[in-house]
């Protein structure tokens, strides 16, 4: 049985209540942290080597080190999880809100934040209710507010629901939204919210899963965490497996301990593909990531391993396409998502996303031409010049250069299938 960190209490009845959490030793990590110096707490997290679980995979402890030491500093937890097929944070906020809160408080203490915010996707109705209830319970318990557990450390924690825009998961757009403005990503420089963030003050933005790991790290030590996994990929990760597998769902696995093939086929995990079909492609790190083919199924689930194969582990969401699914349709659906969710701020993303979606839709419906494939690649190239990975960009934020991933992968891996759509003037698959 592999180690469970963030999902240890998932499945426990009423796991979201303070009483349950306390019964499992909840808030002892916070007590322990408050007995340490903030520097020591920070050092433990540094020692854990934990990479941020939001998608970019930047080391959490190092991010905290970049925080400008102004008198006012903020901590913001990014719970705006809204990419198709990404649903790991959803599980955590609904099932273990106190773990999230405890991790947030420990982090706030470590970085000397003067106020903390949890920005949660507005559609997480149950999650919002559970986190707010948990915050209220934690206030009453003395874990949040003035003089926490008599330590002299005080902080308030505010829950803010999002208003339905995917872009608000981008940290600077999230900050704008939190300030009450339209969710437009901020233009760089300044490069990091750690220097100029919420209300112009230095701000750390961390993902829900990142925060949920912190209590375990404090309780068990950064070394114990770093002992899990391999290389830069320490600890466990929560993989959101979806697509044409028998058992889609969230699976917490020690990093690099399993391969894509094991995740998909292990009877305790994905349980294989339905009706004995075979893997056509895997989208390994959310719909922004380039696809990998069946030849890459033996890659271990690790940050650098997937990067070396030309894609990314990203948010840890893994979509499996079987041989009965249409690559063109999949690309079209993904581009449709991005064109709807482009914030509209800068030209290449606003106009390019819509254009790409329209061409993809046309091809899927059978009105494409062969030259459309070159056009698609060139329109993508004008958003992400060179179509390299990691991408360059003509846009303000990384939503734009996320669009070409599926288009380029689709055309590169399944050009024949595109040509069938074009020549036979329609989709050969049954939907």
């Amino acid at each position, binding site marked *: 049985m592999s180690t469970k960190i963030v999902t240890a209490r998932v499945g426990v009845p009423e796991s979201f209540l303070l009483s349950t959490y306390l019964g499992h030793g909840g808030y002892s990590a916070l007590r322990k942290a408050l007995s340490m110096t903030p520097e020591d707490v920070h050092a433990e997290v540094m020692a854990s080597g934990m990479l941020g679980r939001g998608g970019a995979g930047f080391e959490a402890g190092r991010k905290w080190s970049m925080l400008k030491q102004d008198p006012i500093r903020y901590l913001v937890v990014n719970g705006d999880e809204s990419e198709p097929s990404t649903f790991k944070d959803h599980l955590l906020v609904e099932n273990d809100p106190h773990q999230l809160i405890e991790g947030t408080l420990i982090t706030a203490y470590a970085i000397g934040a003067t106020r903390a915010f949890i920005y949660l996707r507005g559609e997480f109705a149950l999650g919002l209710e559970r986190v707010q209830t948990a915050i209220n319970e934690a206030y009453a318990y003395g874990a949040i507010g003035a003089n926490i557990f008599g330590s002299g450390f005080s902080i308030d924690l505010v829950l803010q629901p999002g208003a339905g*825009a995917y*872009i608000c998961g981008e940290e600077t757009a999230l900050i704008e939204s939190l300030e009450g403005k*339209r969710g437009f990503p901020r*233009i760089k420089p300044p490069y990091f919210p750690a220097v100029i963030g919420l209300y112009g003050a230095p701000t750390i933005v961390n993902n829900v899963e990142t925060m949920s790991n912190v209590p375990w790290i404090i309780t068990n030590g950064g070394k114990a965490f770093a002992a899990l996994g391999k290389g830069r990929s320490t600890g466990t990760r929560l993989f959101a497996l979806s697509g044409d597998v028998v058992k889609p769902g969230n699976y917490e696995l020690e990093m690099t301990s399993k391969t894509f093939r094991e995740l998909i086929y292990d009877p305790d995990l994905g349980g294989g593909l339905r009706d004995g079909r075979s893997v056509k492609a895997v989208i390994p790190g959310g719909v922004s990531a380039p696809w990998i083919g069946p030849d890459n199924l033996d890659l271990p689930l690790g940050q650098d391993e997937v990067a070396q194969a030309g894609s990314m582990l990203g948010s840890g969401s893994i979509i499996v396409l079987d041989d009965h699914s249409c690559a063109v349709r999949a690309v079209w659906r993904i581009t449709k998502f991005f*064109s*709807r*969710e*482009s*914030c*509209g*701020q*800068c*030209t*290449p993303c*606003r*106009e*390019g*996303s*819509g*254009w790409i979606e*329209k*061409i993809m839709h*046309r091809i899927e419906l059978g009105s494409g031409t062969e030259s459309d494939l070159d*056009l698609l690649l060139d329109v993508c*190239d*004008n*958003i992400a*010049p060179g179509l390299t990975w990691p991408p*360059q*960009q*003509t*846009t*303000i934020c990384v939503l734009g250069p996320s669009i070409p991933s599926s288009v380029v992968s689709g055309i590169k891996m399944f050009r024949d299938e595109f040509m069938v759509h074009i020549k036979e003037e329609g989709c050969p698959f049954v939907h």
Partner: protein
Amino acid sequence: MSTDVSQNLVTISIDGKEIQAGKGELLIAAAEKAGVFIPRFCYHNRLPQVGMCRMCLVEVNGPRGFSLQPACYLPVSDGMEVVTESEKVKKAQDGVLEYLLINHPLDCPVCDKGGECPLQDQTMAYGPGESRFVEEKRHWEKPIPISDLVLLDRERCIQCDRCTRFADVVAGDALIEFVGRGDHTEINVFPDRPFSSYFSGNTVQICPVGALTAVPYRFKARPWDLSQVESSCTTCSMGCRIMVQSSQNELTRYLGLDADSINHGWLCDKGRFGHEAINSSDRITAPLVRKGDSFVETTWASALELISSKVSSAQAAGDPNRIGFILGSRLTNEDIYAWVKLAKGVVGTDSVDSQLGDGLKGEVIASLRRATINEAVSAKAILAFTGDIKEEVPVLFLRLREAVKSGWTKIATIGTHGSSLDKLSEVTASVSAGQLQLLAKELMKESSKFPELTKLFTNQGVGADGEGLVVLLGRENLAWDQSVVEAFALELSRALPRAKFLLTLHNANFAGSVDLGAVPNMLPGRLPLGSASQATRQKWAGLPDRAGRGVKEMLVAALQGELDVLFLVGSDPREDYVDSALANSALDQVGFVVSVDTFLSQSSAKADLVLPASSFAEKSGTTTNLEGRVLTLNQKVAPKGLCRPDWAIASEIALELGDDLGFDSAAGVLDEIAEVSPLHWGLSWNRLVKSSAIEGMMIPISATSLSIRPKAMLDEISTPGIASVWDQGLPSSKTAYVENGSTSADDKPAGEPSSQTVAGPLEPIWRLAPVQPLGFMNLAYSRKLYSQGEHLRNSAHLVHLVVEAKCQVSSKTAEKLGVSSGGSVLITDKAGGEGQFELEVDDSVPNDTVELVRGSFSISGFSPVRSDETVNYVKVERA
């Protein structure tokens, strides 16, 4: 403010060529100065940059090699390497242009912007020749009105954020916003909240496509059919620089020019769309002579003959003050000079005035140390005791707003009622007339009874002698006689000798009127009547030796039958004089009223003889703005009918009286002004046009102003619609706020007249404010941008914006009166005059005060202000 900027220069390389640029300057601007134009849409030199359109992407070398960066968002740094012409840059820019065009309707042939459109122009210069987009374009209902004056076509919009940034950041009217996402992102207003900003027209001017169009210009002309001249707006005293454009002898449009010291390219809507009045078919186009109850057209010859005979017989009565002249704000400096010379030099009367109880005494204006606009916006602190700047001098409000938001200065406002400046003010203090003397005397003293004001000014570093303080002085409350404000200004000026004043009076060219002697007891050059030089005496043979009457005295004299002939030159006392009841009954008693006007106003409609005057843009000349800056006005269209310039009319009358004023062109008048007035020394038409161009010239001209400012190229993309290369001046920054004329050499600020031209030091005269009678309330009497005026009434698209006279009280006062919003109240003044008004509850009005917004009171014969009261109180009852 050092002029040696070499320490602040950095060296960057653009396409292999090394250039020097100011530290922190944006790459796009630095490149442009070096002759490299980087294409752009969202960039605007007067707005904060957003880097949204991505058209200005260039390759910049960084730690990870060359990457595409927006030149509009990147400040230059030493050693920066930039490539603007690589394949990669070209592809990125082509790509952005193609993106911008895929959903843009190609309706250029019917688009007002066609021919002056940055999108069209840059598509020609940079874009791929053909579109690869074959899908259905996005569609919106087109166009939709976002205000009374502006229409929005969302299909043409390229989401550059210029209009929205202007509305939010510059105007402070964040009433338009982005709505929606992706390629369905649109600009729109909020439900039931139109873009009703005084500055909405600026969004049309800065729109880089034809998405925003102005209702008055729509489908009126094509840009290539327009011809244009540079001029200055005379709607208020700001002197905003404008481009006047016409097609086939009809004015079509005004555009704001970017004068760094004045308007930064912005205009208010009243100024921008006021050209419609000039085209109006209701203009007076021939001399009209009264026949009983109506007018009949007459010839210039017989009109002049009639004037001559009336003037001669009045002169025969022995007292030259039986003839009076009231000049209005339409006049150019040349018009004013000619009429003052006619009055004082030919007819021999000193009874000339140019203010209608809404200004300040000429001698007081002349004696105050002046501040320029640039000095005001960079002052250590500002004390505002003025009419609502946003209502009276709107673009000055934008300059002050920028200054406060940028932290350049802090404002304290004193007064009797709320104003738009309150939101920008650090301190607002309510004052009564009785407190002003003490306030002025002790403002910078420890004993100050207004500690909040004193503390603010002290913290801001204002000296005990007023050093660093600029006073915005206007008429905060027209219910207080001007003498109250004059006494305050003189007292303050005595207590704080180094404080400076910026006169924020509304009327255009009030400064020129004072400078040129269109007030009693003064001569051109702010000289006292008795101090005429030999040169002046030679040219002004009939100079009177005793002081004449001001407007109020003329009206009182008229009531007593002591005014035989009254010239109203562009003035309408029946409507505009604060005590309109007095003006109406007095004007009825004048023997012979000559009105020189463009429309039949309240006053000219009742005159005995009406002469048709050329309007703005129908004549050339100069005007002086509120800071004392002389600016050019250029003729663009031929005068209507038999209209003549006012200065020429004065000349004709002089000739008829057997005298020759001695000039036959506006430039000739200016030459004589420069000769007679020491204040205007060195000024000439050629110099105004050639050497200082867009900024005009501060008078008196100091020796250093001869230096010519470095020229900046016109950014046609920032200012579409203005062809050719006009000197735009340097972009403003705090350090750029050095007047040409204000040198460190003599430490004398520009605009401050040399001592010889100042009327001697004046003593403040404090008249005892009357005690508030029992049952009477304080009266605040104010003016709005769209209050009254012939110009508004005759501008087809502005006329429906005219505000009705209304009465505002606080909710507490309303409760006391037992009237709710929308109810009717009866207002009675001390003399028994009555008026009925609709009540509006507004809690910016202090309790026990009633604020009357100026409308058209003269129509009902009601005037809430009596000119013989120092402070007016009124009784308010439920009607």
